[in-house]
């Protein structure tokens, strides 16, 4: 009883504080300084139609590198944490049979999901989307694969190599930016192209493709670890 009262009190105080914040909120009718610059000059400086992508990949590209590092760190900690003992490694678990529906649907859907993921990250500079979103979509395909066939063995080497190569390429493109253009992760190492077309915005589609592949591989790796660690339960 006391616990519930305290809990309600905490939530009510929180709601009261939020009300204060909400009350002081005023709808903005213009952009703030830095955003104004992105909106006016973004298209000619970066060449990406999607300004969020321009901010994420070029203006704050270093930040994105940090994000990718965080994902990598998560995957490594999970790999370390859910490490299987040698005697568990060969164990197979008897799962309940998956339904016919799921199995058949997954065969049709998985290639389409992968294709959609690739579409999303290649068009990251033109449409809402980008590397992280595309990678997550690819990983949902992998998750469907695991659901449809719980004993599937994902090829760890492929995941590992895709992840490493795309991570290294991302950094190499960043360093090329220092050598050939204005600074780390500058996208002007190749021509900006015609605004609004697929091959435009300089290195952004390339960087985002690598980010997409890396994120997809990393999340697949995490799913793979979850799937395997069921063996020790």
């Amino acid at each position, binding site marked *: 009883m006391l616990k519930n009262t305290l809990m309600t009190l905490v*939530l009510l105080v929180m709601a009261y504080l939020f009300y204060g914040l909400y009350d002081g909120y005023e709808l903005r009718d213009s*952009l703030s300084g830095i*955003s*104004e610059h992105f909106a006016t000059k973004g298209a000619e400086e970066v060449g990406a139609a999607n300004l*969020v992508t321009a901010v994420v990949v070029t203006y704050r590209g270093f930040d994105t590198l940090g994000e990718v590092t965080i*994902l990598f760190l998560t995957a490594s900690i999970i790999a370390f944490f*859910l490490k299987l003992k040698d005697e568990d490694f060969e164990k197979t678990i008897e799962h309940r049979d998956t339904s016919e529906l799921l199995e058949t649907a997954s065969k049709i859907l998985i290639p389409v999901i992968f294709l959609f993921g690739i579409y999303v990250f290649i068009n990251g500079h033109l449409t809402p989307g980008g590397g992280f979103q595309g990678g997550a979509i690819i990983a949902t395909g992998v998750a469907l694969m695991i659901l449809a066939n719980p004993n599937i063995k994902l090829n760890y080497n492929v995941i590992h190599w895709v992840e490493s190569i795309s991570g290294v390429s991302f950094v190499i493109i960043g360093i090329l930016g220092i050598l050939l253009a204005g600074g780390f992760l500058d996208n002007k190492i190749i021509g900006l192209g015609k605004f609004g077309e697929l091959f435009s915005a300089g290195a952004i589609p390339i960087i985002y493709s690598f980010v997409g592949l890396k994120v997809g591989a990393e999340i697949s790796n995490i799913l793979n670890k*979850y799937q395997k660690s069921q063996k020790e339960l």
Partner: protein
Amino acid sequence: MEFINLGNIGLIIGFLLIIVGFWGVLTQKNIIKIIIGFSILNTGINLLIVSLGYVKGKTAPIIDATIATEGNYNVADKIVDPVPQALVLTAIVIGFGITALMLAYAMKLYKAKKSLEINKFNDLKW
């Protein structure tokens, strides 16, 4: 009807989601439900940040034929703030990482006690 616009709606729903998430974290006994609570909390905060970037009557920060004409890509008076959206992208990725880690811990905890009830984990209680 001053408050019916995307900025205020986003703020209200964001605050509500934060409170619901906190309620879930504080009251639920099942570890998976606590993790879901954290996820909802995370979503609420993200929604809040995006709403703060809303500019009255403006559209998404994607330059296309509806807001710009060929050769003139200055859209400063037509789009909402792109910076909070970019920041939220970072926040979502970190939220994903935290959720994934929490699920891994939940798996280990389940292995230790064969249960996901938080009350069973009382080894540090005196």
